[in-house]
């Protein structure tokens, strides 16, 4: 029997007992449907996180701080010894401290093997922002490092090469500051106020160049983003009147490394930073928590889908065993007519694989329809605050792999009945009872 006839015969045989095949296909359908939806959920959310990575930080950037007191127990809630070089970065029991770094220490970071460049992060504490004579609002201000981007609702990113003082504001500030919509805020003046080292309040007039979308874990979504000129200007303003020993002290620095480094090499780089008295965390570290949680949830859901598939696999075994039993005589006849055991095995395995294909193809197709519909619904209703999030997304590779996986499971389930069919003795099978 040639391959084409074999597949054709197997497909025809599956439809011979329609009710039984339908029920088995239904069982596989449930498994395939669940598996597709859960992995679609994983794909959708992780894709959203990947898209957001660019907003949080570049892949070749590491944020470096000086380890305050390596000997101190992080979980110790008792009082700490005073360190004039240290600032507290948290309140209450979870308080931790970061030691300020001098220019010499910034240079020391640059000397660590594997660090290509380093730049201190100029932190600027704003008092308020105000548009015209409107209500002043409290705001934070940050800057972009190379490779970072802002997810814009309107306008453009702040231009680091420009000497003009530029800023983007989060979309949530648009209405409070008195603008009709995001578009209306572009090119409008904004007053920034801060207090210098001598406790004098200064204010600076800047231009709004863009409005940033709210995004998961990205600073641009919650605070203002300044261009380099503005950042330098504000930092200088803030340092006015500071005692000399407090000038040019940095809480953290941004360092760049070769973006081709592997995860293991990055870990080694972090170890070298620790040896030099610093600690570093990459974008991947900051995102790691998110991805780990989502991957775990998806994994748990996939386990449920796998259990459904396992049950379906036993359904296939049962269906085919019954089929082999019913067709004992037919199998005997085919063997008497010279059909080899291998071909009999192939015939019944193909039936199993075809049942698996039917169930998975239908399950995947319906899951994609339901998933897309649900995604559209959630995207427009519940999760509209997170633009760009597609809750359930499908990529062709995963979908194809799901179908192949289920066909593989079906094949494995079919081996027992198929082997039983192949072992049938023609004489036994043809004996009249």
């Amino acid at each position, binding site marked *: *029997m*040639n391959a084409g*006839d074999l597949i054709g*015969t197997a497909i025809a045989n599956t439809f*011979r007992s329609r009710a039984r095949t339908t029920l088995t296909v239904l069982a596989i359908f449930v498994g395939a449907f669940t598996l597709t939806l859960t992995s679609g959920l994983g794909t959708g959310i992780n894709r959203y996180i990947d898209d957001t990575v660019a907003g949080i930080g570049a892949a070749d950037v590491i944020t470096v701080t000086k380890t305050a007191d390596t000997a101190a127990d992080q979980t110790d809630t008792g009082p700490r010894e005073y360190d004039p070089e240290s600032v507290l970065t948290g309140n209450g029991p979870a308080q931790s401290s970061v030691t300020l770094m001098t220019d010499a220490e910034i240079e020391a970071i640059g000397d660590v093997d594997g660090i290509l460049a380093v730049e201190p992060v100029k932190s600027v504490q704003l008092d308020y922002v105000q548009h015209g004579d409107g209500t002043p609002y409290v705001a934070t201000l940050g800057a972009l490092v190379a490779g970072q981007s802002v997810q814009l609702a309107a306008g453009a990113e702040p231009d680091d090469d420009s000497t003009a003082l530029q800023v983007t504001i989060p979309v949530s500030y648009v209405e409070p500051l008195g603008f009709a919509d995001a578009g209306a805020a572009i090119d409008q003046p904004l007053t920034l106020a801060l207090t210098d080292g001598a406790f004098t309040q200064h204010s600076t007039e800047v231009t709004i160049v863009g409005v940033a979308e709210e995004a998961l874990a990205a600073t641009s979504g919650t605070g203002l983003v300044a261009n380099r000129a503005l950042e330098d200007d504000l930092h200088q303003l803030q340092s006015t009147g500071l005692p000399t020993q407090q000038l040019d002290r940095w809480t953290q620095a941004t360092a760049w490394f070769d973006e081709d480094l592997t995860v293991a090499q990055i870990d080694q780089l972090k170890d070298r930073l620790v040896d030099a008295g610093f600690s570093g965390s990459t974008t991947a570290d900051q995102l790691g928590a998110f991805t780990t949680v989502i991957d775990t949830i998806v994994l748990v859901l996939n386990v449920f889908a796998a259990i459904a598939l396992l049950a379906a696999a036993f359904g296939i075994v049962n269906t085919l065993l019954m089929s082999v039993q019913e067709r004992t*005589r*037919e199998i005997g*006849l*085919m*063997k*008497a*007519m*010279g*059909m*080899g055991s291998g*071909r009999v095995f192939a015939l019944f395995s193909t039936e199993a694989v075809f049942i698996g294909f039917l169930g998975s193809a239908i399950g995947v197709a319906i899951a994609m329809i339901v998933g897309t519909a649900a995604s559209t619904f959630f995207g427009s209703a519940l999760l509209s605050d997170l633009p760009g999030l597609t809750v359930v997304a499908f990529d062709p590779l995963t979908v194809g792999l799901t179908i192949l996986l289920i066909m593989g499971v079906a094949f494995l389930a079919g081996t027992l009945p198929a082997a039983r069919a192949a072992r049938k003795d*023609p*004489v036994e099978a*043809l004996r*009249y009872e």
Partner: protein
Amino acid sequence: MTHPPTAADRSAPILSVRDLHKTYGRGPSRFDALRGVSLDIRDGESIAIVGKSGSGKSTLMHVLALLDQPSQGTLLLDGQDTRQLRGTRLNLARNKIFGFVFQQFFLTGSQTVLENVTLPLKIAGVGRRARRYRAMSALEQLELGDKAKNKAIDLSGGQKQRVVIARALVNDPRIIFADEPTGNLDSTTGRVVEDILFALNREQGITLVIVTHDEELAARCDRRIHVRDGVIVDGEQVAA
């Protein structure tokens, strides 16, 4: 038609068995189905294997048709020891040389007559068009061309047995084994089926091996072998 004595000298045996034993089980449940059978079946003859049920006649047919292996003894097909036939070559021999006609028909009821008849050709790997052409000519030979598209289950007993003969015939076999071919048919239809089988033997030279307990049918064959308790008790003795 009776077999002329000269034909025995003229044609070589297509099947030849010597001292055939077949044992089922072991110990106290041991059962000897065949206890030393020697027999030659010549190309083109018709032979009846006659015996009561349990005599071992069906076992003998199964061994002759290469469906069962003897426990002891030799079986030569065209002078070649069949113990050397394994795997693909055994399947090829089963497919090309033998055709089967069963008392219970063994047709797949849900399939059409044509599908049932093409089964041996499908197993042989014959292409779709050639398959259809050869099956149709076999059906037409048995005057069933108009039933080709009917479901096998809708046919009468006599029609079913003619479909079975068409299926046995479709791959141009050299031997047709018929196990009680008229057992499930009334005497008139049975006679028609017998006539068809003997015509095939006469006109196409297909060797006919009929297993039956019907003495009347056996009498129409060239030769009768009587089997009782696993041995040949009378009939024309084989020239060793």
